[in-house]
């Protein structure tokens, strides 16, 4: 019962049933990622600690979005919506942070 896809007769796109094996692989990857990020947090890497923690978190989030949330198998509209959310969030956060970083520019 774990066929990769079930073709719809309308043919526009198939409703993709993701197989449990994919979910198991993603689960293991997420558990490994968690172990890795906790392990890394016990090592003093100075400046790199937050970067590594956020990089691993982003990798885990990407796996969840692509496979658990089926974005890899979904319509272009869904992909565009997800992309728009990420783009909008990054735009807002970088504009806000660049304001706070540069506000006192030259005043010291």
């Amino acid at each position: 019962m774990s066929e990769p896809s079930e073709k719809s007769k309308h043919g526009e796109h198939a409703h993709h049933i993701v197989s449990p094996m994919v979910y198991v692989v993603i689960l293991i990857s997420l558990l490994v990622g968690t172990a890795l990020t906790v392990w890394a947090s016990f090592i003093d890497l100075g400046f790199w600690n937050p970067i590594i923690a956020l990089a691993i978190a982003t990798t885990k989030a990407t796996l969840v979005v692509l496979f658990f949330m089926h974005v890899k198998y979904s319509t272009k509209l869904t992909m565009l919506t997800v992309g728009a959310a990420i783009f909008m969030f990054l735009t807002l956060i970088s504009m806000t942070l660049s304001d706070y970083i540069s506000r006192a520019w030259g005043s010291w």
Partner: protein
Amino acid sequence: MPDSHTIVHGGSEVEHHEHPAYLRHHFESVEQQADTTNFAMWLFLVTEVMFFGGMFTAYLIYRNWYYPAFVAGSHQLDVRWGTLNTLVLIISSFTMAMGVWCAETRRKRGLVLCLILTMILGLSFLGIKTIEYSEKIEKHHVPGFHYSLQSFTDPQSDPAIYAEYHDKALPVDMARHTEVYFSLYFALTGMHALHMIIGIAILVFMIVRAQAGAYTSGHVTFVENFGLYWHFVDIVWIYLFALLYLISRHQ
């Protein structure tokens, strides 16, 4: 043209064709209906990204402003509880994904089991969060009138934390800003926990409906879209775990 609507409507009555009961009349096909609902759910999640995004941004800005206070505040969190909760939530996301698969392949008992497991794991997460919160209440680290600076102005008075981090005492004006850290900690984890509570309430509703066979007769939209919500809440926690528990351990 006010009449055109009735004409078209009349026309479609004549061409009325067979379709499943769950296909609403304003959709062409089941696929179109599923895509539309899926799109709507994602739009909701975009607003959720913005909602949590605002709080994450506030956290990053205040962390830069009151860096020593945020580091000291973060040292009050126990990585072991945080890790355990991360594992619980990731496994609950897996059981939810399996629930969607069971619905898609019309396995009623499997679906009910997956939903119950997801609910139990969600409740476990909240239980662990309660242990963490009650520790903060005991130490008077909840922002408000009874907030205590003792752990930060005199770190050796807090032996368990001192043994692990050997924090230096903060001057009172900086120590006061640990309250900002805990405000954001409670705002972020509290809003996350509220999402979990809402999710668990919907899970209870879904378990009852699933037992009646609601999602295993070809119409899986509700389970699928709830899955999206549950995974989103998981993603928020993945970032909360990194930002609140992990990034300040060595600073």
